[in-house]
């Protein structure tokens, strides 16, 4: 197989060229070429994003929304420009439906406290699924506990797909929200969000989608999905940490009370009375992570230049390749076998604890995640304390998966 054939997947995707844009991937780990297979935890940053943030600091950094001088004006334009990029990336109608937050976790917490406190009362119900990341589970647990509401769980099949057939029965007259991940961070399952939204809306129930894993891997269009809320994390989208976004339908967002109080989110303040700003500013108290937003905008531009369809195809092809490799190793079990699946490969090795797997792989220069992946209920459902997880990014290729498989075999040999 030629070097070109080994590295490229779709003819239009030059993975070697893309990888060269990530300075950190030129580094060695434990003396070997770094094989970074933990993008589901966080993605590495291309030079374009690094440059955008640096350039902002060097040329345009100033206060957003407040200053009357040119520098502040241009900084504000850049920040709002980034908001428009997020709007476009997610396919939302209006930029005011995009709230900048710290990450997907904060986006979900915002909805839980601002919208949830008003709309979920004693005796009401919130539906989540058995595969949720703690970010899309714990806020709802906290809300239900506080409001005297009940959490209901949509189960999953052994192959890691949702028991969609069980959803209608879970949608009672007391159901106030369905919260579901678009893509599972452990199983890689792409959930049928459009169908779930349709089912829920037929009963007048809004839907919140945790899109943290989906947005970097597959094209997302919130209008097509039909959901009411959609949360993303910048650092998983090849952008900076500390920035994320919440999409919420304008009608909903307008009805929501402020979450954090402070500067920016107000209209007028006096000791007698304070009025609040319109959307989305109402939900962006204090000085924002402007450089983060701008870096995120650069990351989205970068992804758009590749095309999310190509990103998805690349992942799909590599997932198939990686799955074949691991399936061929006796003692390895892959968790999550959905037909609709993206580049997340959680696996166990018989007789070897995931922590040991992670360490041996580390020694081979292969970076994977080992642990409960912030999904303890999911681990329990499969009867495991922890799993190892390899996850794909735009910079991975077949050679990376070859190295993974080799390292897995070495692990088995060491522990036999």
């Amino acid at each position: 197989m030629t070097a070109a054939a080994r590295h490229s997947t779709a003819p239009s995707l030059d993975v070697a060229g893309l990888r060269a844009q990530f300075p950190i991937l030129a580094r060695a780990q434990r003396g070997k070429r770094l094989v970074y297979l933990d993008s589901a935890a966080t993605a590495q940053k291309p030079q374009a994003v690094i440059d955008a943030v640096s350039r902002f600091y060097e040329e345009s950094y100033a206060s957003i929304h407040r200053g009357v001088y040119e520098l502040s004006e241009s900084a504000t334009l850049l920040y709002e420009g980034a908001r428009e990029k997020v709007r476009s990336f997610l396919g939302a109608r209006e930029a005011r439906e995009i709230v900048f937050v710290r990450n997907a976790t904060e986006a979900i917490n915002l909805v839980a406290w601002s919208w949830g406190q008003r709309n979920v009362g004693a005796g009401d119900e919130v539906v989540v699924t058995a595969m949720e990341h703690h970010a899309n589970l714990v806020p709802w647990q906290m809300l239900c506990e506080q409001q005297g509401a009940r959490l209901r769980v949509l189960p999953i099949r052994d192959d890691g797909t949702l028991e969609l057939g069980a959803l209608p029965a879970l949608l009672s007259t007391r159901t106030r929200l369905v919260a579901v991940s678009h893509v599972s961070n452990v199983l890689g399952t792409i959930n049928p969000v459009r169908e779930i939204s349709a089912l829920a809306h037929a009963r007048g129930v809004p839907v919140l989608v945790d899109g943290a894993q989906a947005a970097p891997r597959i094209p997302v269009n919130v209008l097509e999905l039909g959901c009411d809320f959609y949360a993303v994390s910048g650092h998983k989208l090849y952008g900076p940490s500390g920035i994320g976004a919440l999409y919420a339908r304008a009608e909903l967002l307008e009805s929501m009370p402020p979450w954090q109080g402070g500067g920016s989110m107000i209209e007028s303040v006096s000791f007698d009375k304070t009025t609040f700003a319109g959307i989305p500013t109402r939900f962006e108290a204090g000085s924002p992570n402007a450089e983060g937003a701008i870096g995120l905008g650069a990351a989205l531009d970068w992804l758009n230049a590749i095309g999310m369809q190509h990103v998805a195809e690349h992942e799909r092809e590599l997932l198939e390749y990686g799955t074949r490799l691991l399936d061929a190793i006796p003692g390895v079990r892959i968790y999550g076998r959905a037909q609709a699946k993206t580049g997340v490969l959680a696996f166990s090795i018989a007789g070897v604890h995931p922590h040991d797997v992670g360490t041996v792989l580390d020694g081979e220069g292969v970076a994977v995640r080992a642990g409960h992946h912030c999904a303890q209920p999911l681990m329990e459902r499969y009867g495991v304390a922890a799993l190892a997880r390899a996850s794909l990014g735009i910079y991975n290729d077949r050679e990376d998966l070859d190295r993974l498989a080799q390292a897995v075999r070495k692990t088995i040999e060491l522990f036999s």
Partner: protein
Amino acid sequence: MSDLRDLYQTTILDHNKQPRNFRVPAAANREAAGYNPLCGDRVTVHLQLEDGIVKDVGFQGAGCAISTASASLMTQAVKGRSLAEVEKIFDAFHELVTSSPQREIDESGVGKLAVLAGVREYPVRVKCATLAWHTLRAALAGKHEPVRTE
């Protein structure tokens, strides 16, 4: 794979595969539980403490190779020792696994436990190595809340 060989030495792999004293001693009068929530390592340490001597010791639980081997080696190291001796060994062991990888290993205080020195190159795994030891201490002190290393 020289670093890995330092961590996963034959002794450690052996103790992981066939942990010594993997039982609850019949006359056990002290016990404590330990848990590392980050990776799911669980251990309970059971002691028979009499006249200030660890007459018998055993452990149960499930965890990674490092935590299991460490627990196994620990039981061998402390059986028959006085409380004062156990304390000394604990300190020496803790010192060993948290010291800089460049430092020479002083085997006099730790004996066979020196095989765990390799964990110094893998700081994230130090907690695995020390879990059983912190749990042992809790058992000796008669503590009732589960020990956690995070």
